[in-house]
């Protein structure tokens, strides 16, 4: 008894720095295990982001070189706000992300996953394999295919083999329906990611839930709505967030397809063009970096909104065992 009493007094008598040090020591195991991942995140994310934010506050460009640049602080951001293209590009970006996401990267992915898990397994596998093809094809080849699809007769597939035989006027379809092609090109690539995630999520739902739903009186559609979708809420959140961020920052297909012409300029392509491929030869690294920073901010805001919307906290259950 006396020993325990003495120990208690000792605990209370310890100075704050002693206690802080001991807390740190008791957490050292966890910190140790987290360190490799933390290191990677710091080296490949935080340092570049800090650099980009730094550069975005300078006037660095080909003209200034790496020697003669100056701090301009928020000048680049002010320029973005005042830029005549800003609003249009922002609108384009949001439309491109929202439509591609809704129709393909989440929507189509979910539809494919649901269909292929409700048909015989082998047929489902085959069908899903087809949807992986666009992802496996090198982008340049893939986008070239689409360009041929849209091109005017006699090369264009749609014109030559569908419109012409029907006696309709032929023309290059790309400038007429630029967004349709931008969304299709990106969507056919993007759907496979969600498809794979959703399929495995659906297949890992315990079979007894699915059977119970049928016995309880569900039609297949009611089972999807009341049981399957709620049980894959977490993968849905994950794919939606991940694909939003990925679409926000991807421009490679648009670059290859339209180079931002026909009103298809999106934010990331704008940043790329300003910073790295300006045809006047003046790469505006400072301004491009500011554009990129704004994109990161938009991404973070979207991610937070999604987590709110899907009630992310409710998805994470309190672990039953707190400490060992």
């Amino acid at each position, binding site marked *: 008894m006396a020993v325990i009493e003495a120990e208690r007094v000792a605990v209370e008598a310890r100075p704050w720095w002693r206690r802080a040090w001991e807390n740190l020591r008791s957490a050292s195991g966890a910190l140790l295990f987290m360190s490799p991942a933390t290191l990677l995140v710091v080296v490949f994310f935080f340092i570049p982001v800090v650099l980009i934010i730094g550069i975005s506050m300078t006037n660095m460009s080909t003209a200034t070189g790496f020697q003669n640049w100056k701090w301009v602080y928020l000048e680049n951001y002010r320029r973005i706000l005042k830029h005549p293209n800003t609003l249009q590009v922002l609108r384009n970006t949001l439309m491109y992300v929202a439509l591609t996401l809704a129709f393909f990267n989440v929507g189509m992915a979910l539809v494919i996953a649901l269909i292929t898990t409700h048909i015989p397994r082998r047929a489902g596998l085959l069908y899903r394999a087809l949807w992986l093809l666009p992802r496996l094809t090198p982008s340049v080849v893939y986008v070239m295919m689409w360009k041929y699809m849209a091109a005017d007769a006699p090369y264009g597939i749609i014109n030559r083999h569908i419109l012409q035989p029907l006696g309709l006027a032929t023309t290059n379809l790309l400038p007429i329906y630029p967004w349709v092609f931008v969304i299709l090109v990106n969507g056919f690539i993007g759907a496979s990611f969600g498809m794979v995630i959703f399929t495995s999520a659906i297949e890992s739902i*315990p079979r*007894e*839930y699915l*059977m*119970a*739903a*049928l*016995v*309880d*009186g*569900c*039609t297949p559609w*009611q089972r999807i709505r*009341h*049981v399957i979708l*709620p*049980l894959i*809420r977490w993968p849905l959140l994950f794919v939606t967030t991940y694909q939003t961020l990925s679409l926000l920052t991807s421009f490679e297909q648009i670059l290859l397809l339209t180079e931002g012409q026909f009103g298809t300029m999106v934010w990331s392509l704008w940043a790329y063009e300003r910073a790295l491929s300006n045809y006047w030869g003046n790469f505006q690294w400072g301004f491009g970096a500011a554009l990129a920073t704004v994109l990161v901010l938009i991404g973070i805001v979207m991610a937070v909104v999604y987590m709110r919307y899907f009630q992310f906290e409710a998805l994470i*259950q309190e672990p039953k065992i707190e400490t060992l």
Partner: protein
Amino acid sequence: MEVHLEHLTKRWGKVVAVDDLNLEIRSGEFVALLGPSGCGKTTTLLMIAGIYKPTSGYIRFDGRVVNKVPPKDRNVGMVFQSYALYPHMTVYENLTFPLKLKKVPEEEQRRKARRIAEMMGIGHLLDRYPAQLSGGQQQRVALGRALIKEPALLLFDEPLSNLDARLRLTMRAEIKRLQMELGITSIYVTHDQVEAMTLADRIAVMREGRLQAFATPEELYERPRTLFVAGFIGNPPMNFTQVEVIQQDGQYLAVNPDMRLAVDPDRGSRAAGRGRVIMGIRPEHITLARDGEPAHLEAEVYLVEPLGRDDLINARVGKETHLHFLADPALKLRIGDRVRLRVDTSRVQFFDPETEQSLLWS
């Protein structure tokens, strides 16, 4: 509701899960499907529920073939081994889910949920999620969800096997009481013969997809038709020894190198003159001979397993015949003790070692 299974068969590729099953279940009857793991019990149940399509054969509800009727139109309630409560719904939502799907008015849903919750003793849990319930509570919710739509047929798939031993006893009694009160035709799958014996009006014993026997618990216990049934029903399991039954001085003797046991002439006569047969004696039909009482067999205690109320004694007769029986722990039998045994020879069983069919009941 009457349930008839006719030549019911289910194959998965080459695996025959259920093989030509014929069963007639009467209205209001409580039938147990009993058999070791993997013998096709769950498959049978899921075919009755409409989840699996039979490869061949028919399922009739009240005479009507329902092979093609989807589960939702079969009016069946089912309790799963894992309970299968939807984790994203509260207890109330789980309970009323079948009603919601039937578009029952909210007010009626609430009334029925309240009644069922009261019946199952889960009224205070309605706002909780399944993860916040104990196993026994989840079990009650699952049972409530199966009952709330007032099904014509209740299906249970090993509903008690995830519960601890004490809770299992309580829930077993509760299921029995409920079924008797409600009178709903029930099919109860289990691999536990005690559960089957205590709950069921009749037990269908299955083995490797085939029906071995379909009879009342007493019938299966007293008159097992196959070696498998005899060994599967009863706890601790029946003792089996190879013997030859011979007739001598107007007596029938079951003989092997270790023992000579005079058996009941009614039974002995059917096994006599067949060469080697398998004799079965239930542990509860072997007792210790009291002082002065004549013994049938002399044996040596080989192992003692305390079961609490009884000691399960493994006794060796002669060189290699082992017999299990129950003894009063107060006797403090020890390994190596000599014991004198009496056998209720009017209840021994005989089986053909080739066909494994009973020589007494066929």
